[in-house]
């Protein structure tokens, strides 16, 4: 436990988007993100759409090559490895994605879907692979495994398809799983079931999870730590309960207050909201990226100086001028 599994430092991913007929412009999807995941822990990445969560996850799995910064996996620098050099990494770092409908090949049976990664990485004989497929299906509570293995994705409910996605990620016994919005397309009444399943498998196999979600409430219950992203940056990170109960960054606080709890008196009052919308990733605001929407912005500072991410309480970091570095 507590061994560093994944460490990204000052990670940048800029996409080139077309502008007009000949021009192009850099979309700064990720602009200097640093974080780490320990083995056996879940780090949740929360933030609104466009904040860079998916880009972070794809870069962490080296599905895209970052523009700058570094990615270390179990101490090894994988930032610039070529596809051929990534073989061992790909076996140990797997992904579960948002859409259980499109992330599975409709023409392949469950058995074929689960066998594919084993074949790619040359694992076992066919007989051994069949055993592993049945074990993986048992792990995700799809029974009887012999029968489930013969199904095709269209014959399965959304929840079952996502279980197949999890089984596919697990079958190589990875050390690290990226789960990008794994339950956002699943019925509310079944979401917790899938998340408990992932938690249990994590405990059984000691996997480190990067759990990407826009649902900060599930992050509270299913992760150890939370990192909050805004406009391509991490603005706050810390122990899950602490980030939600005692948020440090004004954006985190606003995000939490925007979410209604089931309470009939909600309708009798206006919800406190932050004005405006997130900034364009091609021209993020100078200084603190949140300053145009921030109710506490300090004139003369916030629109000029980019606040660094600093540790304010043990393990709890934020990038905000309201929380300056304690002076020695």
């Amino acid at each position, binding site marked *: 436990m507590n061994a560093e599994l994944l460490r990204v430092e000052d990670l940048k991913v800029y996409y080139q988007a077309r502008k007009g007929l000949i021009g192009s412009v850099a979309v700064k999807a990720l602009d200097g993100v640093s974080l780490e995941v320990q083995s056996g822990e879940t780090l949740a990445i929360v933030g*609104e*759409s466009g904040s860079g969560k998916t880009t972070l996850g794809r870069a962490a799995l080296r599905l895209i090559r970052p523009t700058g910064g570094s990615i270390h996996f179990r101490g090894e620098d994988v930032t610039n490895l070529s596809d051929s050099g990534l073989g061992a990494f790909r076996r140990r770092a797997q992904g579960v994605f948002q859409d259980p409908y499109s992330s599975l090949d409709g023409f392949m049976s469950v058995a074929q879907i689960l066998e594919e990664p084993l074949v790619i990485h040359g694992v076992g004989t066919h007989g051994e692979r069949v055993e592993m497929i049945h074990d993986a299906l048992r792990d995700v509570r799809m029974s009887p495994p012999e029968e489930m293995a013969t199904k095709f994705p269209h014959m399965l*409910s*959304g*929840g079952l398809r996502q279980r197949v996605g999890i089984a596919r990620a697990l079958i190589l016994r990875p050390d690290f799983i990226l789960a990008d919005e794994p339950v956002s397309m699943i*019925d*509310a*009444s*079944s*979401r*917790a*079931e899938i998340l*408990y399943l992932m938690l249990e498998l994590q405990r059984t196999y000691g996997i480190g999870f990067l759990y990407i979600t*826009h*649902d*900060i*409430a*599930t992050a*509270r*219950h299913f992760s150890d730590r939370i990192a909050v992203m805004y406009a391509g940056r991490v603005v706050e990170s810390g122990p899950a*309960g602490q980030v*939600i109960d005692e948020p440090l960054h004004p954006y985190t606080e*606003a*995000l*939490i*207050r*925007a*979410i*209604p*709890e*089931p*309470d*009939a008196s*909600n*309708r009798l009052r*206006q*919800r*406190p*909201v*932050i*004005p405006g*919308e*997130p900034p364009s990733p091609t021209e993020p605001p100078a200084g603190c990226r949140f300053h145009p929407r921030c109710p506490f912005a300090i004139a003369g500072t916030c629109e000029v100086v980019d606040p660094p991410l600093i540790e304010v309480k043990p393990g709890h970091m934020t990038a905000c001028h309201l929380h300056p570095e304690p002076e020695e």
Partner: protein
Amino acid sequence: MSLLEVTDLTLHYATREDPVRAVDGVSFRLERGQALGVVGESGSGKTSLSLALMRLLPSNATGYGGSVMLDGQEVMALSDDEFRRQVRWRKLSMVFQGAQNSLNPVLRVGHQVAEPLMLENGARKAQARERVLSLFDLVRLPREVADRYPHELSGGMKQRVMIAMSLVLDPALVVLDEPTSALDVSIQAQMMNLLKDLKRDLGISFIFITHDIALASDLCDRIAVVYAGQMVEIGSADDALTQPSHPYTQLLLGSIPRLAADEPPQFIPGAPPDLTGPPSGCRFHPRCPYVFEPCDRDDPPLAAAREGHEARCWLLATEK
């Protein structure tokens, strides 16, 4: 007299197999100036219910029937033509699920909002423009947005345009089908505040369709819970949230991860049924922890749990 009184509304869809019983005998009332939240999981029939109310039926619709009294008038007795001229958009309008993506990409949004005024009401251009601008004020869109094209607008702005569009002929009742599901929470909160203002200041009634019961509590006076094409519980928001009577509502509330509490969320084992052949008796019985003798055999009636609060469960029906 209630603004809306729906009795035994039914809408099925023909398929190659048995028909899909998407709306299967739904009854409820809505008072003037109130908002009713219709809460249910994906596929439970929420959109179909709103299409049935709007009489916008897909070509494979079958078994469309029941009674819909709107402002004292039985609108189910009207011909399609009468319904289109007298009711749809004028008395009852709607914001469709995912509608922000159905704006015409080559027309300025202000023009799209003005269209029904000119076509249906024969308004002149200048008059229509005035009305559009005042609607933009109402939904808090800067007036200059009227001259922009859809791709120049954010998701939140497009959804405000859709709300302006639903209000253009001054309906008393607007059905909102998942109006904020595609939006981020901070934009969703802005939208909910806008809906609260429209309800309070203009006295508009809403049917607010959502899969998120907590979000329903942000606007609605009453909450109806749908499961497998039926309304299984309806009551004041307060009762539905704090003293739910139907086991499904109870378990659904328990499945919400709470931000403010450490109590972990639970889940309902199993999945909602296929509506071509829903379970016999109570449609929730295969997933219900309290299932007992009558449940798999007979369909429970909607029974009163308290004053103004009903649930469709044998636990209630047999107490009486």
